């Protein structure tokens, strides 16, 4: 059977479980799509077609023997800071081009054991910081795919992967989701193991998932965290949602009016939407993140920077050097404030099913930048689950995105709410790559 372009993870699993589709069909279709469009989009850093086909043949064999795996045949792109056995983990850093991983990162091993088909490694900004990756935005090649998870964020809307792994230390999961028009999900801090992942900031690094729909992301999340004590993914009755108005004031008119429209639509569908602000000033939240980020990044990279300074990009280099100047007492104060904030936000979030705000203050920016990270920082700092949903298009035809933030540990509830939101405000269709020229 031929796999149509844009097939979703849920459709692929269903097709294989019903014996209507073989994993080798899926591998061939996605490899063909990559061969056709990746020379332009440059979402992938490394793809080894023979390795992909060998995995697919093994998955075929499992299906022929009657095995029905939860993610059977789901093609996954992996951000290139996450180890995949047999492939290099380059991280956008030339000296690592020959660093071949001898084992899978924990999350990749889990995905394989669940039947996923690992397609290859997707481009990242260098070490997941701010120097842009070579990837182009599939909606407009002159626009940024954002970062740091640029390749993963672009691969899914471009139909080159059904699911992709990314990471977020400031805004690197959700912002590429917004700019490229993917669903992006950053779970609660610590939910996904970071074993086998190049660290940036140990207390801020999260892994996350990109998919074309909430159902696809929920399928993979559910499979990965089956043992966790969380309520099942359900649709909420009459959700209570906090619309954070300070973020509308900081947004472009296109973005602000879109989020207002989303809020009104949800209210019209039965949600209780409360206009409010965060329980602490945005400036305070952002400052705490920035101090911890800079100090931890300096700790992670100073030695390597000393050894390979000529290979470091200008943004990560200045960030690391400035981070080394932070006095210890200030870092401890930031950590103490973070702990206090965590409790304040936990109490605030208990009053709502989710917080509603734009994912980013603008549509996709030009390629020299990766975009405004401010709006994604609160969920990163506080370790709460957050989703970005591509819910609209700007007047320039670029994706606009809605962000939902949930209670820490209530990831499934947030996914359930997101499913309901997309039943009210439909997700946009993907880009038409054929028109890119």
């Amino acid at each position, binding site marked *: 059977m031929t796999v149509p372009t844009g097939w979703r993870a849920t459709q692929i699993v269903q097709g294989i479980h019903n014996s209507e589709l073989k994993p080798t069909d899926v591998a061939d279709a996605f490899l063909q799509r990559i061969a056709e469009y990746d020379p332009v989009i440059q979402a992938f850093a490394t793809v080894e077609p023979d390795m992909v086909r060998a995995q697919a043949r093994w998955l075929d064999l499992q299906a022929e023997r009657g095995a029905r795996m939860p993610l059977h045949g789901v093609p996954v792109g992996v951000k290139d800071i996450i180890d995949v056995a047999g492939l290099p983990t380059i991280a956008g850093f030339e000296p690592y081009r020959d660093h071949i991983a001898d084992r899978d990162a924990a999350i990749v091993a889990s995905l394989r054991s669940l039947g996923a088909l690992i397609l290859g490694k997707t481009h990242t900004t260098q070490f997941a910081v701010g120097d842009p990756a070579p990837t182009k935005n599939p909606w407009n090649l002159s626009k940024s795919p954002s970062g740091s998870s640029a390749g993963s964020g672009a691969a899914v809307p471009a139909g080159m992967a059904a699911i992709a792994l990314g990471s977020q230390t400031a805004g690197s999961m959700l912002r590429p989701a917004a700019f490229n028009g993917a669903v992006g999900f950053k779970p609660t801090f610590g939910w996904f193991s970071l074993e086998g992942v190049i660290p940036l900031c140990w*207390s801020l690094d999260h892994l996350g998932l990109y998919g074309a729909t909430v159902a696809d992301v929920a399928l993979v999340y559910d499979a990965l965290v089956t043992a966790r004590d969380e309520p099942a993914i359900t649709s909420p009755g009459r959700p209570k949602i906090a619309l954070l108005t300070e973020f509308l004031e900081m947004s472009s008119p296109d973005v602000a009016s879109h989020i207002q429209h989303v809020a009104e639509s949800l209210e019209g569908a039965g949600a209780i939407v409360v206009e409010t602000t965060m329980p602490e000033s945005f400036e305070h939240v952002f400052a705490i993140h920035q101090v911890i980020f800079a100090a931890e990044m300096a700790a992670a990279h100073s030695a390597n920077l000393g050894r390979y300074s000529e290979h470091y990009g200008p943004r990560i280099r*200045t960030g690391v*050097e400035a981070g080394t100047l932070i*006095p210890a*007492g200030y870092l401890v104060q930031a950590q103490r404030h973070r702990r206090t904030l965590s409790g304040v936000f936990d109490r605030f979030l208990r009053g709502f099913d989710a917080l509603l705000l734009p994912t980013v203050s603008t549509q996709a920016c030009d390629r020299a930048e990766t975009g405004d990270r401010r709006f994604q920082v609160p969920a990163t700092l506080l370790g709460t689950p957050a989703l970005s949903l591509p819910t609209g298009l700007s007047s320039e035809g670029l994706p606009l995105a809605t962000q939902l933030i949930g209670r*820490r540990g209530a990831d499934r509830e947030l996914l359930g709410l997101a499913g309901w939101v997309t039943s009210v405000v439909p997700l946009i269709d993907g880009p038409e790559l054929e028109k890119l020229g």
Partner: protein
Amino acid sequence: MKLDPTTTQAEIKAVLRNQSDLVYGAQRTQELASQIEHLSTMLAEVIRRPLDLTGPAPDSSGILSERS
């Protein structure tokens, strides 16, 4: 560097610049000027708020491990 809520952004920036001069030299400090400006603003915001000294001991994450 002083560590109290009255410390100003200008004072913090001056200390960071001096430290950068020592570690990276005057030319690189000039190149780091916008980063030092940003960082000193962030540090001033962090130090401006008094700490709650009665809470649990600092840890490396600041995030409570139990479900909210």
